[in-house]
């Protein structure tokens, strides 16, 4: 029984999954211990929730870019949709639901649903096409969402929601409050996000993506990526399959955004610009396409490094670009690939030997 369990653990599919879960849980325990003993600096403490948020968004993007093979340059746009939806829902429910955890969960679900809806709407025309159209459209989507929210005034009182664009024409009854104030974004948000919920959200995202990948849908998603014509020849509807991956990717970004938005008392729409989308893409590419554990590690490292190396901040985007180019060159180098394959082989052999003994 026990032996069977261990041999299953070394099964490649289960192994990568177990490592991801363990990594997240161990990181959570260590950080909780550190924060309870007071050895965590306030800077690091303030980064805990954002790291969780970006990890979830990156896991979603990895499903889209790594498994489905479609380039998405608007993940920050979906985060933005999720964030402001989450803030609005939480603001509206503030008087009705006093339990912050319950309100946070509802806000996250709302953020995920609205982002998924947006994904569905832009996915309908685009995913029927072949090529890089999705990259162009999601790029535009990110910009459009940013512009819309920058020009949107949203207020809430007992008569319901009031919206106006470009100029603030919203007049509220007494007791009402402004949820979105154009370029200033959302202000006075109740900060209800917590690190524990962030970790739970990461675990949920991992479960969703892994469960999907090792199922009928996952085989179809990877099949369409590997060979579109062959996938059609065995009766897989390519557009629908890519849509599924895209919607789940968008909804994870939405959920991450909602958590992110409710972690700050002020959030400006400019936070989710093109650079943020590229940042998330860098997390995914650096962590490895289709590699969830890698995504988690690279997100954490790349989120923490700029804070720990504040003095180099001016060169940040420059260094990212160089790192991205170097990685693409190195991973496509046949000599280095052969070396890496040899190393991997010897590692697997070592593990198999350990299993037998």
């Amino acid at each position, binding site marked *: 029984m026990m032996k069977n369990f261990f041999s299953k653990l070394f099964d490649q599919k289960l192994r990568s999954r177990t490592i991801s879960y363990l990594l997240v849980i161990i990181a959570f325990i260590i950080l909780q211990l550190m924060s309870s003993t007071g050895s965590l600096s306030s800077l690091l403490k303030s980064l805990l929730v954002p790291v969780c948020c970006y990890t979830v968004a990156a896991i979603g993007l990895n499903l889209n870019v790594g498994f489905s093979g479609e380039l998405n340059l608007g993940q920050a746009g979906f985060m933005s949709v999720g964030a402001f939806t989450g803030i609005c829902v939480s603001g509206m429910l503030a008087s009705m639901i006093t339990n912050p955890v319950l309100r946070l969960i509802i806000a996250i679900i709302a953020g995920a649903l609205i982002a998924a809806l947006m994904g569905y709407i832009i996915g309908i025309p685009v995913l029927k096409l072949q090529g890089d159209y999705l990259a162009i459209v999601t790029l535009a989507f990110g910009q459009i969402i940013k512009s819309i929210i920058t020009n949107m005034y949203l207020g809430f009182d007992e008569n319901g929601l009031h919206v106006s664009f470009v100029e603030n024409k919203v007049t509220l009854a007494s007791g009402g409050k402004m949820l979105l104030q154009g370029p200033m974004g959302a202000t006075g948000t109740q900060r209800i996000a917590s690190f524990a919920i962030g970790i739970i959200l990461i675990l949920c995202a991992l*479960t*969703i993506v892994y*469960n*999907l990948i*090792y*199922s*009928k*849908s*996952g*085989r*179809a998603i*990877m*099949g369409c*990526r*590997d*060979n579109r*014509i*062959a*996938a*059609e*020849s*065995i*009766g*897989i*509807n390519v557009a629908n399959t890519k849509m*599924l991956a895209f919607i789940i990717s968008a909804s994870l970004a939405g959920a991450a955004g909602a958590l992110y938005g409710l972690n700050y008392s002020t959030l400006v729409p400019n936070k989710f610009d093109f650079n943020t989308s590229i940042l998330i893409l860098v997390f995914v590419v650096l962590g490895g396409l289709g590699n969830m554990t890698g995504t988690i590690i690279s997100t954490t490292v790349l989120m923490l490094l700029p804070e720990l190396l504040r003095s180099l901040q001016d060169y940040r985007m420059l260094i990212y670009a160089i790192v991205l180019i170097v990685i693409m060159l190195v991973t496509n180098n046949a000599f280095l690939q052969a070396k890496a394959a040899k190393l991997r082989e010897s590692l697997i052999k070592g593990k198999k030997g350990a299993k037998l003994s």
Partner: protein
Amino acid sequence: MSENNIDRSLILEVEDLGIDFGGLTAVNNLSLKVYNNEIVGLIGPNGAGKTTVFNMLTKVYQPSRGTIRLCGQDTAKMTTVEVNKAGIARTFQNIRLFQNLSVIDNVKAGMHNKITYSPADSIFRTRKYYDQEKQIEEKAHELLKIMGLDSLAEISAGSLPYGGQRRLEIARAMATDPKLLLLDEPAAGMNPQETEELMDMIRFVRDHFHIAILLIEHDMKLVMGICERITVINFGMMLASGTPEEIQSNPAVIKAYLGE
């Protein structure tokens, strides 16, 4: 099952099929019938339009003229996906496997439309998910055994040897549970011994699953060895049709292959 009981119903009926690419007529006036439990060969010199016929049958190309009926059903308005659901599966001349999926996952991918659980079932890992995954796991192993790939089930499809990749394509096509299997040069790149084994496999697949097989092949030993009927095309036109013996002694065919 005795000889008389074998179902010989008409599976595929092609009438006056033709396609033009711009001003070029690639295939014209092609008629073809394939009955159940039959292996039919489609041969012709290079560039005769054989693969184009397959692409029209599977709706990768839309025919310009003519009709294709599968079990009496007109496929004019169908897409590639719908044609597969209606019962045509194929392999490709230039192998098109899902390189990064494991061998068994390639076969399981072929069972896509046999699985009824939804993405929600897979996310929440319901009982339906486990039941159906177990079923298709067994079925996939069964197919891999037939094609002699069962011991390689867990390696990635891209690392299979060439002959293995061709056989895996057949296994994946068979996983869709077709009525008609189209094989596009199944023996290309195989050595004589592998070809011999492949012939046995193709016969076994036909006898075991009771399907019709239409195949394109340049290896005349294979074609003459397993096909019951052969259609020869040249420059997109039908040249001859008949049993292997008739084709071998047909002067028009000999002329097309060997010249004057």
